[in-house]
């Protein structure tokens, strides 16, 4: 069943007074339970695309359908894990995880139950009453994932959530995220500029072209899980994507030098 459909999304943005075409007709179908990674050169508009799916930005034209219904505003059915975590520093960890549930008007006892479950899942039980500044970057991202999952969204959107992590923490979370995906059967769209990440996580890797962005290539990765960073069988997918991206990065550098 198709969970999410993006139909011919076009988006311009303003750059020093000039209108720049960022997304030039992105069309993407995501099946229920799929794990889709989007890779592309930095600044290619992949985060913009994710923001449009989240409803945080509006496309100039095109349509996003969730379960066949058009969406235009942000909503808890599409929760996002941001690059910087975007946790609220004035709330304890557990209250951060409960925030969306509170907004949904779920009673306190039930909120506690749900948030405890996801804190357990992310191995954060001990830190429920900590404030976010007391956590490491990796723990913060765990909280952000728990917070997004607690809403039981239709689709989970992840915008380079591991970009700021050290490599050991990231490798650990890459495995954890696969386990969580298998356990929760969530539909996930994961945006990254890190090719290895996309190969480890994605059932499908969608490669974005340099600005104006289009989908250049889609690579299906049908390989057992949990996949590990050091697995050599993943190399061929990695190189395939590198090849696709190489010309894009060169194009981008040319762009910037003009």
């Amino acid at each position, binding site marked *: 069943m198709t969970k999410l459909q993006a139909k011919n999304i076009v988006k311009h943005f303003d750059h020093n007074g000039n209108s720049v075409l960022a997304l030039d007709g992105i069309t993407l179908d995501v099946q229920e339970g799929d794990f889709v990674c989007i890779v592309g050169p930095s600044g290619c508009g992949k985060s913009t695309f994710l923001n449009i799916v*989240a*409803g*945080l930005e509006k496309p100039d034209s095109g349509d996003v359908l969730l379960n066949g219904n058009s969406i235009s505003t*942000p*909503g*808890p059915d*599409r*929760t*996002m894990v*941001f690059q*910087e975590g*975007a*946790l*609220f*520093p*004035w*709330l304890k960890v557990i209250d951060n995880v409960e*925030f*969306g549930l*509170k*907004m*949904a008007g779920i009673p306190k006892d039930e909120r506690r139950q749900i948030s405890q479950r996801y804190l357990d899942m992310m191995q954060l039980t001990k830190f429920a009453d900590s*404030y*976010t*500044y*007391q956590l490491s970057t990796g723990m913060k991202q765990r909280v952000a994932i728990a*917070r997004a999952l607690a*809403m039981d969204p239709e689709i989970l959107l992840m915008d380079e959530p591991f970009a700021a992590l050290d490599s050991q923490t990231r490798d650990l979370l890459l495995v954890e995220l696969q386990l969580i995906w298998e356990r929760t059967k969530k539909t996930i769209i994961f945006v990254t500029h890190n090719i290895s990440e996309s190969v480890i996580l994605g059932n499908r890797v969608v490669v974005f072209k340099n600005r104006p962005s289009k989908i250049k290539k889609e690579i299906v990765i049908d390989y057992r899980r949990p996949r590990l960073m050091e697995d050599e069988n993943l190399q061929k997918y990695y190189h395939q994507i590198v090849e696709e991206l190489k010309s894009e990065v060169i194009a981008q550098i040319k762009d910037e030098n003009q």
Partner: protein
Amino acid sequence: MNEKVISEKNSQGLHDAANAALLLAIFVGVWQVVFMLGIWPQISLPSPVMVAESFVKIISNFSLPEGIGITLGRLVSAFAISIVLGTLIGLAMIRFRGFGKTLNSFSAGLLSFPSIAWVPFSILLIGFNEFGILFVVIMSSIFSVMISTYSSIRNIPPIYLDAAKNMGAKGFALFRYVTLPAATPSLIIGLRQGWSFAWHAIIGAEILMSIVGLGHILSVGREFLDMGEVIASMITIFAIGLIVDRFLLNKIEEKIRRKWGLDHHR
């Protein structure tokens, strides 16, 4: 926080208090020496003991406690009005962007406008009365509340608002649970500044407008050539400013900063 940290903190506090007491003792000592040198007549510069006697006098005839009570009462009510109106205008500036931007472009002039300069205007507009003073205090503090409300909310990292909207927060809940707490550390700084402006304004206005209060004791002292009374009132004004800031405003700010972890990496 473990016990060691607490005890270190306490001994640091004791240390600071001892230093403060030492500084005061030196100040009083120098004052006494200058007094004994007899450069100024006693009527212009009384000794510390004479000022202490003036203190006893204005406390026992109740003029000081009464003055403190009236001035602080006035200050609190005027500042409360400033907070309410200043916040509302600040929110309107957020809501109506063009209005906010325009008004904000005057902020430097509004914030640096000397509070005393409102006094003649207030006397002519309202008169030598309670409302005249309240007006001066409100006008002196409302702009810092207004501008800080505006800039605190404008400077909230957009990612907090995006994250909140993404989790279904909107309307008043978004304001109550995200905008307000996210703006709080910066709002507190604005309130502190507003309080300090209000404090300047009220003493000035009471001196100039000769209306009962702490400032008025100062001007009565001047009229009766009673320097002891003048200095005793000045010390009182200093002490109140210090106590309110250190034990109230600063404590609130520290508590918020600690909770947010803003002092964590120092």
